[in-house]
């Protein structure tokens, strides 16, 4: 019954057909073991299709892609992993210049608004029946990929980034601090307390408390409901108290000398993580993948505690299908399988990226899931709680660029190039020039 994949299908006439396909898919996702679609959905004789997928960072899709290929031998998915910034720029260039975009592209939440502004660059997933999947995903996450008028959906949600605080139990012990996660959480009800703990920690151990100021900043700024934009997409970076609060606390931490000054996402960061050059790390769920991948030798030395002043969301992505792709049908079938709850659960268990499908949060598979790498912390429960507490934060159209400018300013203070005051002034100046004036 599955529409033949070999026949070229005029898109508009195919909508009804596609909707059926979507229904069928949704049905397949209902439950049972996570097999890649129902058997028979991929006729043996189907034309071989290669799907190029662009990712950044750690998505943990490797084994799932292999499984999908085993069950759909005609579909081969090739991935390219690039650096976060380079990835989104390459995608922008590929879309705008009309060639060079992949079949499937990850888009981080900081960039989704920018790409959403040109929905014509992507296949509208609603045309494929994605509407039926809406109930699977967190409503606020879904909204982020939906155009303002609700007519087009440019991406399906991958993970969300509810935050907690990862810390090194061995170093905490060395510093004479408690190591139990409840007690550690109780050490820092507020960010000021957190910085105070950092002082004690650094004094006792001689190594940094946080890895870099920008990591602390991102944790705090993402706890609000708005950061650089108001909900009507006007810029408020200069007047939003949430931004200023995150900035000021970050400056306080840097001046307290508790930053290890290691640029995140570099080789030195990796080395620092292995060597224990810092005691805590802001942990959106996806950070667990980085830690386990980069510092496998530190297994068991980490634990996870709640973050000061509640939860927040940092990061998480979407998978979108650029219009340039020649196989949208196959691509949609693949991503809707890949991002279904079962597969998201698999990714969480093996990599740490947290599902964007709330039905899983109360599922025993999550609730009872603990990770030996993190000292058997019940990471499932910790991040599920954190995720449920998240107040969705509004992400505006040039979020990614703003973030890079702010993080550079923090870096300047850390490296001693500028005082906090100077850095704040030059930051405002640069933002005004690059993205526009703030109200």
């Amino acid at each position, binding site marked *: 019954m599955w529409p033949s994949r070999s026949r070229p299908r005029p898109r508009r006439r195919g909508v009804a057909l596609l909707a059926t396909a979507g229904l069928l898919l949704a049905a397949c996702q209902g439950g049972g073991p996570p097999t890649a679609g129902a058997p028979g959905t991929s006729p043996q004789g189907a034309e071989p299709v290669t799907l*190029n997928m662009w990712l950044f960072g750690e998505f943990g899709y490797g084994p799932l892609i292999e499984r999908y290929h085993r069950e759909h031998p005609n579909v081969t998915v*090739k991935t*390219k992993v*690039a650096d976060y910034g380079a990835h989104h720029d390459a995608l922008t260039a590929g879309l705008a210049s009309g060639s060079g975009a992949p079949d499937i592209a990850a888009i981080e939440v900081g960039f989704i608004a920018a790409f959403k502004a040109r929905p014509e660059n992507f296949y509208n997933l609603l045309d494929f029946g994605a509407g039926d999947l809406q109930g699977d995903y967190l409503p606020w996450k879904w909204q982020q990929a939906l155009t303002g008028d609700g007519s087009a959906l440019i991406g399906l949600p991958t993970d969300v980034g509810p935050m907690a605080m990862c810390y090194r139990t061995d170093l905490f012990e060395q510093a004479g601090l408690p190591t139990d996660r409840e007690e550690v959480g109780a050490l820092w009800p507020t960010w000021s307390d957190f910085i105070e703990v950092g002082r004690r920690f650094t004094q006792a151990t001689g190594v940094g408390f946080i890895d870099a100021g920008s990591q602390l900043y991102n944790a705090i700024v993402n706890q609000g409901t708005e950061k650089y934009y108001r909900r009507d997409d006007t810029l408020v970076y200069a007047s939003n108290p949430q931004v200023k609060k995150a900035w000021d606390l970050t400056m306080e931490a840097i001046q307290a000398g508790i930053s290890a000054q290691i640029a995140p996402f570099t*080789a030195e960061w*990796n080395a620092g993580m292995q060597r224990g050059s810092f005691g805590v790390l802001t942990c959106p769920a996806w950070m667990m993948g980085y830690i386990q991948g980069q510092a496998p030798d530190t297994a068991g030395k980490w634990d996870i505690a709640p973050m000061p002043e509640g939860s927040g969301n940092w990061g998480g992505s979407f998978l979108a299908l650029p219009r340039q792709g020649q196989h949208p049908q196959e691509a949609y079938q693949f991503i809707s399988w890949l991002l279904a709850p079962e597969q998201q659960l698999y990714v969480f268990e093996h990599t740490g990226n947290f599902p964007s499908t709330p039905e899983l949060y109360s599922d025993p598979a999550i609730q009872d899931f603990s990770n030996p790498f993190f000292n058997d912390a019940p990471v499932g429960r910790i991040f599920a709680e954190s995720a449920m507490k998240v107040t969705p934060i509004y992400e505006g159209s040039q979020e990614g660029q703003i973030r890079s400018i702010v993080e550079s300013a923090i870096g300047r203070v850390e490296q001693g190039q500028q005082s906090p005051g100077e850095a704040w002034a030059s930051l405002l100046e640069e933002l005004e020039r690059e993205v526009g004036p703030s109200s």
Partner: protein
Amino acid sequence: MATAGALERAAARPRARARGAKRGPRAVGRAGLRTYGLLAVAVALSLFPLYWMFVVGSNDSSAISRVPPTVVPGPNFLRNASRVVHTVPFLRSLLNTAIVATAVTASVVFFSTLAGFAFARLQFRGRGVLFLLIVATMIVPVQLGIIPQFMIMVRLGWVDRLQAVIVPGLVTAFGVFWMRQYISSAVPQELLEAGRVDGCSTFRLFWSVVVPAARPGAAVLGLFTFMQTWNDFLWPLVVLRDPNRLTVQVALQGLNEAYFEDYGMVMAGTVLSVLPLLVIFVLLGRQIVGGIMEGALKG
């Protein structure tokens, strides 16, 4: 190998000159212990980064965070290298680069010899002006035209195609200049005149007289062009994105950016990226040295 033989001859000239010259009074003394000491230091500095590349590339990825640092090669090079080729299509990038560099080299050598011959030995109106133009364009940093060049490639639909990196490199002003100088000194006018009298066509003269005589110079030009194309970075970075279409420099930069967590692997990739040229250098380095030194006298 014919090429090697030709190169041998090219390299032989300056050496012969140097050897032939009797050293009399000069502002230089004999090579003594100090000379060798100084050179040993220079050689050590010169080779150390390559050694270091291999040290990191042959240890596991935790080696870089060790204090004191690991300074001897480890046993993991092959494992790291195989991770490189399995994680990204690195071999494909090497192949792409070989294709690009070979095509560019062949074209540059051919067209440069052709034009160099015309400028060196043929009479035609505008010769002086045109040659001056070539000399002038040698100092023009044409790489700076990347914005329109990118637009052209978009228009042609060549983004992510190897021809986008090949075609702009098909000719170089330096190549024409180099071959003109070489042919001027290597092909006697009388020989060509004799050929004319015998009724040879111009192309016949080119093919039967000029090409054989210009072989040594062409070979050196070919080597330089090949190495330069192999190491090109900015333009391929702009115009290539598909992981299967990258040249090795772009692939290496991407590897370094995206896989920072596995530095052993990144460094193994770095070693792989320089290995082909190093092999060529070990085989033909003598000729390359000769080419550079001879080129210095002509330029």
